[in-house]
């Protein structure tokens, strides 16, 4: 017989009691509602099985995997440079940020270091993809709460950032720009001046949302105190990124585990919020966009001259070994554990994507809330389906 801990016993009794409450005490019948896989609030194919008592959630069970593409397995039959184009598609809104940790892991194995200019441009594009990603969240959260207008502003101002990424890399959504040992190309002419202008627009967008949404009474009513995650719970579920920081945990991979990027040379701040509710998650992300815009301007100013590519062999064979590199991606901590056997292809790649861990808290968080709050909480956790299912 398997031993059952006291905690498991209590959890079982509590869940039974919850079911009993639905059926006996109130003499109401529970209802099982499938939110998804096709549902406007999941912006993708996430399915959440929700047991309802009236409009109150008794139990919620997320079912990911409808969009599983088997990237971890696919990497094993692709050479290292080919893997790069594949992992662009994990978090499709901030694609460049997906490439960086993998390339850094490969560089670590090969013992190559990118030249300083390449590192600065990498950081620059990394922050641009953060802006491109999180601005969409800032509008999307409003749509989930019923305000249709901010999302169009988000798309409008995000377009400028995407244009920048496109003119620098050639790809709007999937740049595939990072190379082992540096970057594919240098920045085009006039790009720096244009970037600074766009950052003014991004800041204006943040100010606009601050007055339109953050100061709105209904927005405050809908988000404050909804979906509160205490810091210890957030840590135990492995949350990362803004979801963790909005619970008051001061942890940022950019500052605390700097690898290969130049964040230590910049003047910036890690934003946290003590509340841990949906409002805090929105607010922290809003500040992070501003902070990213600030960083981009600093990066533009301090861009060192020099080559953008280190000396690497034409055919890349990565020496045998294992490497783990994690960076602070737009959605949270994203890491690659790369195992190489000295071949053209990696032997095994484990992808730690942020959204998968971020939605693991959903069953804990959704218990006892109302259906409209389910949407608020899911929106504020901010996941991207590609990042959950890989």
């Amino acid at each position: 017989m398997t031993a059952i801990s006291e905690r498991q016993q209590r959890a079982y009794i509590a869940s039974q009691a919850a079911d009993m409450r639905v059926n006996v005490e109130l003499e109401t019948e529970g209802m099982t509602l499938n939110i998804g896989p096709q549902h406007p609030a999941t912006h993708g194919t996430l399915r959440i099985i929700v047991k309802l008592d009236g409009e109150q959630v008794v139990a919620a069970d997320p079912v990911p995997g409808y969009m599983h593409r088997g990237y971890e397995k696919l990497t094993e039959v692709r050479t290292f440079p080919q893997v790069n184009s594949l992992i662009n598609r994990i978090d499709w809104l901030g694609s460049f940020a997906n490439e960086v940790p993998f390339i850094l892991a490969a560089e670590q194995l090969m013992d190559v270091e990118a030249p300083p200019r390449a590192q600065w441009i990498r950081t620059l594009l990394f922050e641009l993809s953060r802006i491109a990603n999180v601005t969409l969240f800032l509008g999307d959260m409003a749509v989930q709460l019923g305000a249709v207008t901010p999302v169009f502003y988000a798309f409008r101002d995000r377009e400028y950032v995407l244009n920048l990424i496109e003119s620098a890399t050639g790809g709007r959504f999937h740049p595939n720009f990072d190379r082992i040992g540096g970057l594919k190309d240098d920045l085009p002419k006039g790009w720096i001046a244009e970037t600074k202008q766009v950052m003014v627009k991004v800041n204006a967008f943040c100010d606009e949302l601050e007055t339109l949404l953050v100061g709105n009474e209904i927005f405050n009513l809908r988000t404050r105190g909804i979906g509160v995650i205490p810091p210890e719970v957030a840590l135990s579920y492995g949350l990362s990124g803004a979801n963790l920081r909005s619970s008051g945990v001061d942890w940022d991979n950019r500052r605390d585990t700097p690898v290969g990027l130049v964040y230590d040379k910049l003047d910036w701040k890690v934003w946290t919020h003590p509340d841990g509710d949906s409002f805090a998650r929105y607010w922290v992300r809003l500040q992070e966009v501003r902070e990213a815009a600030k960083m981009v301007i600093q990066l533009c100013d301090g861009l060192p001259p020099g080559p953008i590519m280190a000396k690497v062999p034409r055919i890349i064979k990565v020496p045998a070994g294992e490497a783990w590199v994690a960076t602070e991606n737009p959605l949270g901590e994203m890491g690659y554990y790369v195992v190489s056997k000295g071949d053209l292809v990696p032997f095994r790649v484990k992808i730690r994507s942020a959204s998968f861990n971020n939605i693991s808290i959903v069953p804990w968080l959704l218990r006892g809330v109302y259906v409209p709050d389910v949407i608020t909480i899911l929106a504020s956790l901010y996941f991207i389906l590609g990042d959950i299912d890989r």
Partner: protein
Amino acid sequence: MSAVVLADLAYWQVSILRVLGLLAAVLLPAGTIVYLFLFKMMSFMQSRLGPMEAGPYGSMQLLAEVGKWLQKEDLFPNGADRRVFAWAPIVVVASTFIMYTVVPFGPDAWFADIPTGIYFALAVSSVSVIGILMAGWASANKYSLMGGLRSAGQLIAYELPLVLAVLGVVIQAGTMNMQGIVEAQRNGEMFGVGFIGNPYIITQFVGFAVFMIAMQAELTQPPFDMPVAESELVAGYMTEYSGFRFLLFFIGEYATAGAFSAIAAVLFLGGWALPGIGFDADIMNLLGPLVMLTKMMLIVFLVMWFRFTYPRFREDQLQIFAWKYLIPVSLVNIAVTAVLKVAF
């Protein structure tokens, strides 16, 4: 003039003319609202152009949409209560049509001159709740059911402030007849100044504010769009509808917006009357509808402005707002109005 013409016609001829007029009165404002506000104003507020291809400046877009909906298959979901499912949109649209009947557009341009017109209009406006509940129940869809139930709760809660806000006007005008309310506003005077009459938006401003908020909720427009909350309930009670039946719901939504704004225009903005032109002048039968349309569009503009700006309430917050704030405020308004009416 038209009164003379109408008097010469047989009863059935007058009835047919009235029905045609009612059709125009329901559909023309609804179409104008959809094009002006839903297509164009919304787009401009969201930094885009909206429909531009169909007709000059996209003005024929609505016809294209209607054509598209008419072509679609008349779908019934498995397990749906077919008869109830089919009748639900008709019930909703019927209540809108009946609401329009009591609205006067000129000295003789009315469809039915009921002595208790405003009472009748508010009463039949609640019939649409039945249609929405029917749609929610008969769709055999959990989202629809939740949308229908939310809708019922919301509409019943906001009926009360709506009626109470109207009571202030009725007390001041001393009549429930819509034509009488227009006349009272035209012939009224403020502090001895009778040039533009006395539109009740000035003396009944609290009532107007409460009426506008309750109207927003009755129309289930954001921030009170819990029943159709598209990010939660897909489309609420309309989820399973397509084709012609969806079109009926769609017309119903914007025609009801027109009907409520027409009532608001009569109650608070002085209706069809123009200062300087006699109350019974025949020319007002032509100008009156235009004046009414302008005032209606002004009010719908307010409704749509709120709609495109605010996030939506949660169900309980919405009820709290109605019962704890709107109803007490409108009760105080009634008491103050009654006291002042007796005093002056």
